[in-house]
């Protein structure tokens, strides 16, 4: 059948020639190889560097976003604080107005009470009248004291305070000690 056992026949040559010389293994093999080479650091280290740079950029962007957010928050709080300060100022202004009105009301009440005391002094108990007068003087003294604190340069308040202090000193030196004080503060 074969003239030379170490030579291929024409049919055998054709059969060998028809054998596939090219074939692709499964797609998974490529991924396995690439994955293994990545794990060994042969592939992808430049990509990893790019990813590292990208991560840095992302981190920077995140930090910038946070800074922007924090700045916005701070500005918002500052604006809020300004509103709060304005509100406090308004409240203080309101309190001042309320206090001024209270001074006017109590001043009027004080004068009304003194006027009523003067009218009733002839028929009232002299001890009660004396006690009321002493209380009125004490209040007047403390009011003058507050007036001087309120307006140190106000000569009227200063003169009233000095006059009251002088009168008190004279009363003390005359050894006419007053009876035990029984003030009822309001």
């Amino acid at each position, binding site marked *: 059948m*074969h003239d030379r*056992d*170490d030579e*291929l026949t024409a049919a*055998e040559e054709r*059969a*060998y020639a028809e*054998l*596939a*010389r*090219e*074939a*692709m*293994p*499964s797609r998974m*093999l*490529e991924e*396995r*190889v*690439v994955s*293994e*080479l*990545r794990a*060994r*650091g*042969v*592939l*992808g*280290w*430049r*990509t990893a560097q790019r990813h590292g740079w990208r991560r840095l950029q992302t981190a920077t962007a995140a930090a910038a976003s946070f800074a922007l957010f924090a700045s916005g928050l701070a500005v918002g709080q500052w604006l809020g604080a300004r509103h709060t300060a304005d509100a406090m100022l308004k409240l203080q202004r309101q309190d001042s107005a309320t206090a001024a009105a209270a001074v006017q009301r109590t001043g009027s009440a004080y004068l009304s009470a003194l006027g009523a005391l003067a009218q009733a002094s002839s028929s009232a108990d002299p001890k009660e009248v004396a006690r009321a007068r002493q209380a009125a003087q004490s209040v007047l003294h403390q009011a003058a004291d507050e007036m001087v604190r309120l307006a140190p340069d106000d000569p009227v308040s200063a003169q009233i305070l000095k006059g009251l202090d002088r009168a008190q000193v004279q009363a003390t030196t005359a050894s006419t000690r007053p009876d035990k004080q029984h003030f009822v503060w309001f």
Partner: protein
Amino acid sequence: MTADADLVEAVVSDGDEVAFRELYRRHTPRLYPLVLRLVGGAEMDAEDVVQEAWIRAAAGLKRFRGDSSFGTWLIAIGLNAARDHLRRRGRWGGMEDVDQIEIAVPPAMHGHRVDLERAIGMLPPGCRTVLVLHDVQGFTHEEIARQLGIAVGTSKSQLFAARRTVRGLLDETREKTHARPG
């Protein structure tokens, strides 16, 4: 088309994955059938060997000087990887004694015609490697001798034994198929 040398340079200098995939897709189609035949037709074994060959090739890319084509260089690596694989499996004992080669057709294949591919796969690994390299890949005996580290005469005697065995397998199954009743 980017030259192999440029792709190699991109992989070596940059670890360029895209360049590597291009090399892989360009040369694996020729490497895989060779390896598949060397391991006797076992696809999973062939894929393991191809993977090992590429890993060795990638690790040695810096040593690739372009003296031979990249494809030839890769085939040599694949051949060594296949031999190492067969050796680990205890199936590579060097070149067989050509007088001792006897292949019996498995009972399961009685009545079925064995094609050339199947017959090559049934050869002992040593002479199968020589036959595949010579008759399928077109290597000369000198190249085979250099690749396998054997004498040229050994390559020739292995090829002779391989061809004879293949013929025997093809003739045996052909006769049995023709003789099959019905």
